[in-house]
């Protein structure tokens, strides 16, 4: 299963029943043209409610956004990627709750095919300012189906989902902002490089991944005191800002490497690069690192190293 523990996409497999896990995710990229570092972090708690049902709750934070939209919207949208613009604070951005249900499980010797349905809901505390939505940046709901095939050391997974962001409202200033509805497709490949054959649970696992992330989303809409706010004024001022508020389609690739220690802890690192158009959620290249640990209830609290020769 290790080669289906994709760093970005969710695999169709679920957490073992009664086993909790924790995951830290960190993303970093340089904002352009300011060259300022943008950092994002998330903590995710996972728990196997049953052998087929997994629950997860996440909290995310970053310095990607202001606490609220400023009163001068024109200055904000034109300048907030510039070095002269005020620094964004680090803040908690959102809470996300998810449920994944595995409804198909076809197992064979050293292989399986699984399918799951996943639903998520998020509450955001900040104003997201782009057309492309992201749970945590946006309050919203998400639903997806996942299919994962694993044969010996190779895994491939397909995720197709729909993200519906809720409207952000700032009643004190009369603003509302809604990112576009988004359909996404993730195609992920994983391969266990080592070990070729196990000698025990303490063997270091090294897995290689390549993930393709595609999204198609609608344009953002905004109102000020109930009146539509047009983004057309930014078309000549800043092409990047203008494009980030319009509908879009893109595909990016995320190659990564994963290390699994003592069969319980995994560390992965990789980079995101655009292939077709680009995501406006981040600049490129975007680097990511995550650490995930499962807490298995062991009788003697000791790791039994087993010789398999």
């Amino acid at each position, binding site marked *: *299963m290790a080669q289906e523990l994709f760093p970005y996409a969710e695999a169709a497999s679920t*957490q073992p029943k*009664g086993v909790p896990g924790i995951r830290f995710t960190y993303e970093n990229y340089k904002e352009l043209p300011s060259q300022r570092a943008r950092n994002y972090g998330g903590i995710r708690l996972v728990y196997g409610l049953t052998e087929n049902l997994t629950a997860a709750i996440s909290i995310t934070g970053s310095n990607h956004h202001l606490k609220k939209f400023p009163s001068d919207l024109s200055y904000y949208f034109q300048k907030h990627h510039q070095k002269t613009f005020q620094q964004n604070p680090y803040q908690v951005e959102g809470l996300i709750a998810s449920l994944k249900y595995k409804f198909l499980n076809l197992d*064979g*010797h*050293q292989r*399986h095919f699984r399918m799951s349905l996943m639903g998520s809901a998020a509450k955001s505390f900040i104003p997201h300012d782009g057309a492309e939505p992201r749970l945590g940046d946006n309050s919203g709901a998400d639903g997806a189906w996942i299919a994962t095939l694993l044969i010996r050391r190779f895994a491939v997974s397909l995720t197709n989902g729909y993200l519906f962001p809720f409207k952000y409202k700032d009643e004190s200033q009369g603003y509302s902002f809604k990112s576009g509805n988004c359909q996404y497709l993730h195609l992920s490949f994983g391969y266990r490089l080592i070990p070729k054959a*196990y000698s025990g*649970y303490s063997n270091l696992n090294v897995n290689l991944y390549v993930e393709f992330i595609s999204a198609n989303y609608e344009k953002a809409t905004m109102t000020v005191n109930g009146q539509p706010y047009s983004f057309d004024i930014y078309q000549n001022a800043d092409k990047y800002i203008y494009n980030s508020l319009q509908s879009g389609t893109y595909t990016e690739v995320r190659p990564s490497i994963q290390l699994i220690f003592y069969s319980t802890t995994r560390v992965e690192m990789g980079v995101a690069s655009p292939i077709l158009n680009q995501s406006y959620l981040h600049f490129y290249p975007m680097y990511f690192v995550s650490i995930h640990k499962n807490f298995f209830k062991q009788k003697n609290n000791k790791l039994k190293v087993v010789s*398999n020769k």
Partner: protein
Amino acid sequence: MISFFFRFILGLFCFFPVVSKAQFVSATLGINGLTCSMCSFAVQSEMERLPFVEKATLNLNTNIAEVLFKTDQKVDVRQVVAAVYKAGFSVGYTEAIFIFDQQTVSDQFVFYYEGFNYQFLKPAQEILNGKTTLKFLDKKFLRKKAYNFWAPFIKESSRGKTKADLKTLYHVTL
């Protein structure tokens, strides 16, 4: 009429289980769906938490689990199988070693051991003595294709039994 009477009496005796002097030693399970040490670790951890399990070892390359039982605890093979499913995987086959003491067995023969009945299906009549490997045939104890072969025989042998009887009944063969 008379032959029906004798068949009826024979059928009753086939179900009335014999209390066995057997001892349950260990079990071997082929686990399906596993491809790495992280998932094997989940399965082995789950098995070792069972109170009647002395030791469980899972070969990470063949995906075969060997489970050694405590001699002073009541063993429930169903819980061992359930531990595999709880971890998110499935069982390809389940075998267990019993130590018999000059036990004659045949098709439909039932023996009782520590709260459970074990009914033989399709073995040749023979006398079991010493360590004997029994293959479990019930659903989830073996892969679907293999279970489908035994399903009609299990259904036939389950006729007339109550739900309570079936909860403590295993179907086995040699």
